[in-house]
């Protein structure tokens, strides 16, 4: 099975309609052209993929400790959630 990183990148690439090779760890969602609706959709897809609950409220994205500022931070956040929920 592919790594968490590759699976997250796959989800984000699909949302951004890009090839996974074009999504780098330091990309921000904005760089990739993902807007607020795209973000909420990506988080939903990630929750479904990993069977986790991501604590994300669109009104206060900075309030949860789930950091969406870059692909790397999202991957790190998912790894932490999976570790906590396993």
């Amino acid at each position: 099975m592919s790594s968490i990183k590759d699976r997250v990148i796959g989800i984000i690439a699909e949302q951004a309609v890009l090839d996974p090779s074009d999504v780098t760890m330091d990309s921000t969602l904005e760089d990739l052209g993902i807007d607020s609706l795209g973000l909420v959709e990506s988080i939903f897809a990630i929750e479904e993929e990993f069977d986790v609950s991501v604590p994300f409220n669109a009104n206060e994205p900075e309030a949860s400790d789930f950091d969406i500022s870059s692909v790397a931070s999202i991957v790190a956040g998912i790894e932490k959630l999976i570790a906590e929920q396993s």
Partner: protein
Amino acid sequence: MKRVVITGAGTINALGHNVPDTLEAMREGRCGIRELEFRDVDRLSIRIGGQVRDYDPEARFNRQQMALYDRFTQFTLIAAREAIAQAGLVFSGELAARAGVVLGNSGGGMTTLDENYRSVYEDGKNRVHPFVVPKLMNNAAASHVSMEFNLKGPSFTVSTACASSNHAMAQAFQMVHGGMTPVMVTGGSESMLCFGGVKAWEGLRVMSKDGCRPFSANRNGMVQGEGAGIFVFEEYEHARARGAEILAEVAGYAMSSDAADIVMPSKQGASRAIKGALADARLNLSDVGYINAHGTGTAANDKTESAAVADVFGAHADRLMISSTKSMHGHLIGGTGAVELLACIMAVRDGVIAPTIGYQEPDPECALDVVPNVAREADVNVALSNAFAFGGLNAVLALKRFA
């Protein structure tokens, strides 16, 4: 063009089961938002809302009616009975033939849908009650009002999400204003507070888990409410001839579409609707003393709405009051503008401005007088009611003290 006045008002919502109780709660800055109570609420992550409490539908409706009335229809009829009783109108003959009912609603019979989906999907039943369709259809409430009160003129339901009621009332105003009919019953209702209804909203991640704090820097989303607000819009000479009590005058309205984004609000779209309502009502910026805000308590709405108001009113923006009563009754979606019009009536008729409760921290992006936490007495001649819906559909009404 005919002058249009309001001669009856009715409501049921989380703050009260009638207009006097609701206005008293608004004056006292009471909060109707509490823990939700319905089946499977433990499977939701959002568990608060402005639910109608201490409500016994069987005390209001008989068995045959109960079989046909979803909760949103029940609320509508309760509010319509209050409004039409206050107006003192009996619809017969020519008046019945011309008077109609235009209502706002977004979700239709959500509780009916929820219960019947559960029954066929979860419980595996293969048979549903014969009245599922007439119960859940969006126009059920308008139709039952027309039947109960013998309204035989133009009747329909307007569905523009959170602006439904304002669009409906604008339409009713236009019909009376233009001389099509001397009386229209109008307003709106909503009841989405059931498992499926709240679950759907949860998905969008714009709901607050702990409270509705419009314009406050620490706001974190909207909270849903339920209920209805119904009004009798009447042509002034018709009302005067029969000596009816006039609650307020509807001075004008405007509608606009952002044509931009399905969920994000637009300052330009909101501004155009506010400006348009003032132009339609032939009012100056400085006439406006109070705005009942759309004020959902989301990050995006409140800052966009504040910017639109600042843009339209310029220096006068600092002299007017703007509050969001959603902080008390929650967001009634398709019914919200109707319940909020009550706050506008209270402002122009009683000189009492309903507060924005839950206000804790000033937000520099919402730097207006939001009447924080405590109601205020003020002499207000003109009040606006804003509604800016998902889908970018906006409708603003202008209300004037009757003089």
